[in-house]
């Protein structure tokens, strides 16, 4: 029995997140019986990746922060002020905390026509495609599950999102939700192929789909190796998040929220963050494929955290770029979005595959 525990602890200690700066403190803390074990468990790389970064905690923190960043940034571009009244000294940074408190205490109304079990389950279930891909995205050297097919798995998980949104709309059983659901399906057809093909172009270029290997291979970031693929992937990501300028399924103007028109309270809060989760995951994937993942000038004292910080910074940059689109471009119609998805973006992604093949053959 003790042997098994010993073996487990050894396994964990062999694969710890190394932080040279904190080593003295950590060494003391390891000595304390229960706390030491707990700390060792948390700092065990796979668990750290799943729970802290890039997993659950980072996602939660970003969900709290992203809407504020978005509103503040767009307001600046549009000559407005943005959230201001809650904690004005900090520029209203806890706005979403206030919003989520409101969502929490609001009554969840399940209308008579709704398919009740599905209506209640789908918002919660939609966290599955948000959390699972994070297990395969490495932040520097920290990754939850190492897999030679990591990139494909992430893409497959991301393309699961629309399924849950279709489920939401279907369970709502209302006209607006129905129209929004159909539009979601349409847009899904518009971006999906371009997204996968442009990612495929990079996999062809690197010759591997192991996330760790991909980030390790990029001495020159992928965006320079194959800018066409980066552009196609970026536009397809913008469509995949179904946010402005491609806010076609939700369409506040016509459909008053599309698939989630019937939701209220905390369930609405859960749906509200779906698009931000998508933004985070697609930005992470983009960082991994095109910006070199966690690679960057290494800060020795931080050890493994160095790569992690670079990864988060790059992801934030991509997220801000995706978010700022709504302040730059006007909203597209459904047919325009489909044309963009099928015509220029699909063409770009196909060209990108050609570019990758040529580079592989020539170099």
């Amino acid at each position, binding site marked *: 029995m003790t042997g098994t525990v010993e073996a487990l602890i050894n396994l964990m200690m062999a694969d710890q997140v190394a932080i040279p700066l904190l080593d003295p403190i950590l060494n003391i803390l390891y000595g304390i019986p229960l706390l030491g074990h707990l700390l060792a468990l948390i700092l065990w790389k796979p668990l750290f990746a799943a729970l802290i970064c890039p997993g659950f905690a980072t996602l939660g923190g970003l969900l709290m922060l992203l809407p504020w960043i978005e509103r503040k940034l767009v307001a*600046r*571009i549009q*000559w*407005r*002020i943005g959230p*201001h009244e809650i904690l004005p000294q900090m520029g209203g940074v806890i706005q979403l905390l206030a919003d989520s408190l409101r969502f929490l205490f609001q009554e969840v109304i399940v209308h008579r026509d709704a398919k009740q079990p599905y209506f209640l389950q789908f918002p919660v279930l939609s966290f599955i495609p948000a959390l699972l891909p994070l297990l395969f995205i490495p932040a520097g050297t920290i990754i939850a599950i190492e897999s030679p097919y990591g990139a494909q798995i992430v893409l497959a998980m991301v393309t699961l999102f629309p399924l849950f949104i279709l489920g939401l709309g279907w369970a709502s059983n209302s006209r607006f939700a129905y129209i929004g659901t159909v539009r979601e399906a349409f847009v899904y057809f518009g971006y999906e192929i371009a997204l996968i093909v442009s990612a495929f172009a990079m996999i062809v270029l690197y010759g591997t789909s192991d996330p760790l290997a991909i980030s390790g291979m990029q001495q020159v970031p992928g965006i320079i190796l194959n800018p066409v693929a980066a552009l196609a992937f970026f536009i397809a990501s913008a469509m995949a998040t179904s946010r402005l300028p491609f806010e076609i399924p939700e369409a506040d103007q016509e459909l008053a929220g599309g698939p989630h028109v019937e939701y209220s309270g905390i369930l609405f809060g859960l749906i509200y963050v779906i698009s931000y989760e998508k933004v985070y995951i697609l930005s992470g994937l983009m960082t991994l494929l095109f910006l070199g993942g966690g690679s960057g000038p290494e800060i020795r004292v931080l050890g493994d955290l160095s790569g992690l910080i670079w990864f988060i910074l790059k992801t934030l940059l991509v997220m801000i770029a995706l978010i700022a689109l709504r302040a*730059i471009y006007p909203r597209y119609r459904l047919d325009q979005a489909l044309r963009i998805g099928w015509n220029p973006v699909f063409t770009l992604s196909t060209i990108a595959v050609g570019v990758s093949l040529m580079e592989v053959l020539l170099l």
Partner: protein
Amino acid sequence: MRKVVAPDYTVFEHVKRHVEAVKTAIREAIIPESVTCSYPKERRKMPASFRGYLIFDPDRCISCFGCAFICPANAIRMKEAEDGRYYPTIDYGKCIFCHFCLDSCPEGALKPTKIHDVAYRDLDRMLTLTEEMIEPPEIIREDKRYVEYVIDGRDLHLRRVDGEDELLVDLPPPSKVERIASCIDPESCTGCRICEEVCEHGVIRSSVEEDGVRMVIDSERCTGCGLCVKECSMRVLRLVRR
């Protein structure tokens, strides 16, 4: 009808325009302009002719009911005061701030202010009685500066100026067509002299002579308020252009 056609750009021009848009967004994100006035800490400076709450001067009112008649929202009701005369009350729950009443007032008894933000505890209190209209409505002012919008070329800019904006304005009464009362049908006049009694300025005078009554309108002093025209039982008086 002209059909709107999408401009026929080449790929290069498309790219140029996309880059321009992104460039503008980045510039504004870094050095933003602002057009939001942070009311109530600052107030927009309204023009002197702004149509806000009204102040009422009972000394000038001649109880002609003109404001109540012209009010398109039926917000003005005339209430009998202790001195037996009728003065307007305004229901700000109905008022649409068109200031027709002010324009129609022949004596300038209603005055405009720039006040537009008065809070009420309930709907009943929005009915503002005559006594409450004599003084401007009470508001809490937190503003330390006021804001002006300046159009400069194509863009709108915001200029902040320290100091309080004076909300009470002293405008001369609106100019209007000068009219005077006159008799269009002297034979139908009954000689009841009600016009003489209602005239606030003593413009219509009568003198009893042996075989009848002589009526005289002093055209110099007639303000054209129309009170006599309204009161004449035979409608023989009419307002005509001076």
